[in-house]
Structures are given as C-alpha cells and as structure tokens.
C-alpha cells in the first residue's frame, strides 16, 4: 500500500496533513504518535470508514478509492479495532459472518473458523456468545475474522492494551507468521517496547504530519518517545529517598462483593493495607474487577462496613462525600462522563467533587463560583492543562488535557489518600510523565496513593509495592524491586486467584 499526501479535515482542524505512508508486503509497520496525532483518522481512511479530503491511495500499484469498509475488505484490507467492533449478543460465528461478503452456510463457516483459528494458535468455539467471553478471546475473534478474509494488509489499533504479557507474546507470534506469509501489518501502539521488538519499520505522526520514519530496532523506547512528543520526555524520578512509611491510611479487610451484572466481576476477599507515604499499584488485565474494586473503595457501591477502613474508621457503607471529608480523593477511569460532566464548565466540575471538602466552595446550599474559577485556574497552571480559552466546557478538552485536569483537581486538594484508576490511560507520553511524577510527589509528601493500572511500564515506574488483580482476587502486595514482569504476568493470568484462595 502506498498512501500519498492524504489529508483529512474536521472543521478547522487538519487531522491529517499530506501524510505519505508506504507499507510493503511482509512488513510489520508501526504507526506511532501521541493522542490526537491523527493515527486513528489515518487508518480509518485506509479502512474506508472515513473519506479523505485530499491525496490518493495506491493499492498494489493501482489507484483505488476506498469509500466503504466493504470495499476495503474486498481489496484485502482487514482491521482489528482498539475498541472491539463485536456484537455482544451474537455468537462467534454470527459475528464473523457479519464481516464476510459471502459467509455461506453457518455450519460450514463454523467449521472453517475452528480450523483456521486452531491453525494460527488462536482456538475459538464458534457457538459461544461473545458476551460471555473475556477480552483476550474477543480479540482472537477479531483477528480470526480478519484472517478468514485472506487479507493482504491487517491494521491493528493498540491490540495489546487489553492483553496479559503472555497473551501479547502469542499475538506477536501470530503476527510474525502472517508477515512471513507475505501479509503486511500496520501496527498502532503506545507501547514502544513492543514496537521495537516486533516492527520492521516505523512512521511517526505529530499534529497530523509525518515527522520521521525510522527503523525501530535501531532506536530505544526513549528515543522513539522523544520523536513522538518532539521533545525529550522527562524520566520520572522515584526520588531515591526511600518512602517514609506512616500509618495505615486505607485498609481493605476481606473485601467481597457479588457481581452486580452478569458481565461484571465479583470481588473475593481482597485485603490490602495502604500506608501513608507509599504508592501501591494494582496491575491486571481490564475487566478483572478493577472497576468494581474502585467503586467499593470510593463508595459508589456500598459494601459491608468493616470491609473498608479509612484512617482506622470502618466505612464500607459510608457515602463518597463522607470519604472525601476524611481527606480521601478518587479519580475514576472514565474521565468524560464519570470523572467530569462533559457539558459543564471546568469550574463547575471542580465544585462537583469538592463541594463538601474544606475548600469553602459551598455554604448554606449556595456555591461560590469565583472560588471555583480560581481553583480551576490553579489546576490549569500547576498541571499545564491546555485549553483554547478560559474555563471551557469539559468536553472541549482533549483526552490527555482532561486527564491532567481530573487528576489535578484531586491532587490540588493534597489528599491524604488518593485512589486513581488508570491514571494515564490514553494519555501521551509528556502528560503521562507529569501525572506520574505528581503521584509520586504526593506520596513522598506523606500521602497514600493507590493506582490501578493496566500499563506495566507505568506500574514499575511509580509503584513502591505491586499487587495483581485477577478475576476479582488480589495477590499480596509485594515490593516493586522484587517483582519482575514475568511474575506479574503469571499473576495476571490467574496466579493471583490461587494465591488468593490459599490466603
């Protein structure tokens, strides 16, 4: 595939500005860039979900117009989406049939799925309903769906963000085999280690333009990162000074909760002592109970009173506001909608989490908006939140900037206990470094920080102790320097469960 001067405009914003990209047969080609650099827009044009405003696409030497995903599939372009494009209520075979132009009889297709999936080491049961399957298997469905179309080019958008390291390794083997068979792979990832490991060539986008092309095997993750950001990324310093541990701020005692919905995870006897002055990170693959654990700790979902203690007071049934008054702060995973109200001004969003704390924002039912605005300005200054004009609506901020804002909003309170779910999810390298540093600094100043994350690089960067959550079981938190990636990976893949059962 050869793309020349592809341009896409959204209103006044140039999402892609004359992008040139050549992908060769049998090549695993990495597409790198910060959030909002235009990677997704670019691949959507390749897959026919978006139409370019300018430029042309050559496919095997011929000029083509891809105006529909069906056209792309006919040409032999397959795509594995970041947010899966599967239908939960349907079975595996039905999901795959939907993506094929001539699926034939369901029974025959089911046999083909079984054969192909086994052949590539990604076994699937065609009659399973997707809703019952874990994310790793769901991704297999997407990949097998691509394979059945006998593609010449597979586009993968952050495929490993939901996988354990072991599952990712298996995926890499499949990709390498595909490349050997002559299929081209366009690989989008934030994880530079992986890119270095499996990709032959890399194209780096910044602000919608191609800024560099390089051979990732000859680069280091740090040099790749600085090419993406356009500046050196400050390494996070965990300040050699060992954490001065204080008393237990947050205690979880046999925290258990049944699953609220069929697709949720039950929590099983989770115990953890979080002390002042330390950062404890909880690793795990998405959907293993992180959300449920966060909801229980923050008070969104009440549990039995004794199960959660903040500063020694049992508070499993207490409200979020009560917990915030105990100087605890919470940053949920989903920043838009859960962490901030999209249609409200940033200052109003400040009031939403801080109305009851000692900021004096509310008195006798009245809200002091000037105070909220000044807090908002302080957050903007301290956390480098970039906005087009003063005090905009939350939805107008880009993902990374909004994340800086919602994390900054709580950090600005200097909470004694901070619980944060996915602190840097979908955030570019520069903003991520800033947030991580802020978390460490908060802990060093004597607060307790609990970070739930799926990003192992992040966890090893910030954590003093690491625990792993798997299917609602939490492994014992162990000092970070004693943990290795392999061990965390094994715990993610179910080791935490058995350990939890023994404990």
């Amino acid at each position, binding site marked *: 595939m050869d793309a020349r001067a592809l341009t896409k405009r959204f209103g006044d914003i140039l999402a892609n500005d004359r992008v040139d990209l050549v992908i060769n047969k049998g090549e695993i080609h990495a597409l790198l860039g910060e959030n909002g650099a235009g990677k997704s827009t670019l691949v959507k044009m390749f897959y026919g979900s978006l139409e370019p405003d300018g430029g042309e696409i050559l496919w095997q030497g011929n000029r083509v117009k891809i105006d529909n995903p069906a056209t792309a599939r006919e040409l032999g372009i397959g795509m594995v*989406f970041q947010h899966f494009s599967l239908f*939960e209520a349907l079975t595996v075979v039905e999901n795959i*049939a939907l993506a094929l132009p001539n699926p034939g009889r369901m029974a025959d297709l089911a046999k083909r799925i079984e054969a192909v999936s086994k052949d590539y080491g990604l076994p699937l049961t065609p009659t399973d309903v997707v809703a019952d399957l874990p994310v790793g298997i769901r991704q297999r469905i997407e990949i097998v769906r691509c394979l059945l179309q006998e593609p010449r080019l597979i586009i993968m958008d952050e495929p490993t963000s939901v996988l354990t390291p072991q599952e990712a390794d298996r995926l890499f083997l499949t990709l390498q085999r595909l490349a050997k068979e002559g299929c081209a792979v366009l690989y989008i990832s934030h994880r530079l280690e992986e890119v270095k490991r499996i990709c032959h060539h890399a194209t780096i986008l910044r602000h919608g333009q191609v800024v560099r092309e390089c051979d990732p095997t000859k680069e280091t993750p740090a040099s790749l990162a600085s090419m993406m950001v356009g500046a050196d990324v400050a390494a996070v310093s965990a300040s050699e000074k060992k954490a001065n541990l204080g008393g237990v701020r947050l205690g979880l005692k046999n925290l258990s909760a049944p699953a609220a919905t069929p697709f949720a995870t039950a929590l099983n006897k989770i115990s953890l002592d979080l002390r002042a002055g330390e950062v404890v990170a909880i690793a795990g693959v998405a959907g293993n109970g992180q959300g449920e654990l966060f909801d229980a700790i923050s008070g969104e979902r009440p549990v039995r009173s004794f199960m959660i203690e903040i500063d020694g007071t049992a508070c499993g049934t207490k409200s979020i506001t009560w917990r915030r008054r105990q100087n605890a702060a919470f940053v949920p995973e989903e920043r838009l909608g859960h962490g901030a109200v999209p249609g409200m001004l940033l200052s109003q969003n400040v009031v939403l989490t801080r109305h009851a704390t000692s900021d004096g924002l509310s008195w006798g039912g009245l809200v002091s908006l000037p105070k909220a605005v000044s807090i908002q300005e302080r957050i903007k200054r301290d956390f480098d939140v970039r906005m087009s004009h003063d005090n905009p609506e939350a939805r107008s901020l880009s993902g990374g900037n909004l994340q800086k804002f919602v994390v900054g909003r709580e950090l600005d309170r200097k909470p004694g206990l901070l619980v944060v779910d996915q602190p840097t999810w979908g955030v570019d390298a520069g903003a991520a470094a800033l947030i991580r540093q802020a978390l460490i600094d908060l802990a060093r100043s004597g607060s307790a920080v609990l970070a739930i994350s799926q990003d192992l690089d992040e966890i090893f960067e910030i954590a003093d102790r690491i625990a792993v959550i798997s299917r609602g079981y939490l492994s014992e938190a162990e000092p970070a320097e004693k943990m290795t990636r392999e061990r965390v990976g094994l715990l993610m893949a179910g080791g935490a469960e058995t350990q939890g059962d023994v404990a």
Partner: protein
Amino acid sequence: MFEAVLLTVITAATPLLIAAIGELVVERSGVLNLGVEGMMIMGAVMGFAVANLTGSGALGIFAAILAGVAMSALFGFLVLNLVANQVATGLALTILGIGFSGLIGEAFIGVPGLKLPQIVIPGLSDIPFFGPVFFRQDAIVYISFALVAAVAYTLFKTRVGLILRAVGDNHGSAHALGYSVIRIRFMAVLFGGACSGLAGAYLSLAYTPQWVENMTAGRGWIALALVVFSSWLPLRVIVGAYLFGAVNVLNLHAQAMEMDIPSQFLSSLPYLATILVLVLISANRRLTLVNTPACLGKSFVPDR
C-alpha cells in the same frame, strides 16, 4: 360457549399480535417507536374510509398499511435522519395520529362499515371444535400468524435478520463493518408502520366494523408492552398477545355477568403483567441481555 369465547379471544388478540410483531422488528433494530397507537389509529380510519368509499376490503387494508407506513416514515425521518429524541417523537406521533384520525373520521361516524369476509379453509375447517375456531377466519388473522412465522425465521435464520440484530446490538460496530445503520433502521421502522396500519385496519374492518373516534383505546400501548413481555422473541409474542387478548375478553364477560371484579382492575392486568415480567427479567439478566437490543432508543450519528 367456550368456542364462542375463544373466537372473541382471537379477534381481541389479532390486532395486538400484528402491531407487536412489527414493533418487535423495529426494536430489534435498536429504535424505540412509541407511536404505535398513533399509527394504528391512522390505519383504522384510513382502512375504514377507503373500504367504505370503494366497497373493497382489500383496498381498505392496503390504504391502512400505506397510512401506517406514511406515519412511520415521518417518524423515521425525524429520529433517524434528523436524530430527534425517539421517545418524544414517538409520543408526538401518537398524539398526532389520534387527533388527525378524528378529523378524517368525522364524516364516517355512525356510517355502517364493511366486515371482512371469512375465508373458510376447506377440509381443515371441518375438524370439530378447532376447525370453526381457527380455519373460518378472515384474511388478517391468517396473515398475523404468517407474519410471526416469517419474522421469527428472518430474524434468526437469514442474513438480513442477522444484520438487523447486529445493528440493534451495537450500531457503532455495524457501521464500522460497513453496514448502513440508518437505512437498515429505516426499513425496520417502515415495516413496523405497515404492521401497525394493518392492525388498525383489523379493528375497523373486522373487530368492530365501524369508525369510532379513539377506537384503538390503548391497544398500541399494550402492543408496546407486549414486546417487552415477550423479551423480544417473536414466538413469545403469540403467547403474550393471546394472554392479553383473553384478559380483554374476560373483562367484557365479567362486566356482562356483573361479576364483582372492577373492570378497571382487569384493564390494568396487561400492564401489571408487563411490570411483573420486567421484574422477573431483571432477576435473570444473563438471558435477557442477550435478547434485549443493547442500542434500543439510542440515536446514531455516523462520524463522517
């Protein structure tokens, strides 16, 4: 006696069955059309008017279906193309239908109507008891059963049905795979309109062959409740429609026999049954989540 009761149950159940199976298809595609009542009553008045003016029942039925399709096209244009709120638009459609049908029907109040002829199926109709009940019916009753069978088969055995369910389950994914969400939904909405129109025609051409203002009397709402009651499964719609139809008939008989049950209580039974089903459903969510269209009532705007 029992035979006679069963016959009235069939007549009470048929309009519910037809309107509900149409709405089921609409909801399976992810659209919630609360305008069933309005589309039904427009079908009833147009069916009656055209049958009366032309003297042809078939033309009446055809006009009723067209009226339902026209109403649903208006709804589809508003909620699918202009992305209006589905609940508000559906309610408006009902209010519009009730008002507009009154206006059209003004001239037909008290005019004697035309009753659809029975179609006697030779052979089968001679079976004792069952024959007269099931095989001496008018065309629409036969159509109602054929419709349910066709919808059940299409939804679960054909590619069209698979695509329809996919669109209702996750419109974002369906769009990403290259299916035209808006077009598919529009087709489903039109089908729902046609069914509602037909159900209306049954009321004014078979159930009570005359035009009375507001003659649907809440049947459109019962049809909507039925869809939930059946947890979006076509064959269960038959069970629900006949159950609700039976309650309706029981209501009439109870009044006639001056039984001590308030008729208001009996009329509320279908809704109470629906609430009960909803409670039971939430107890066993695993099963329902697979059948409930996840995108029901959500607007879709393609990111182009």
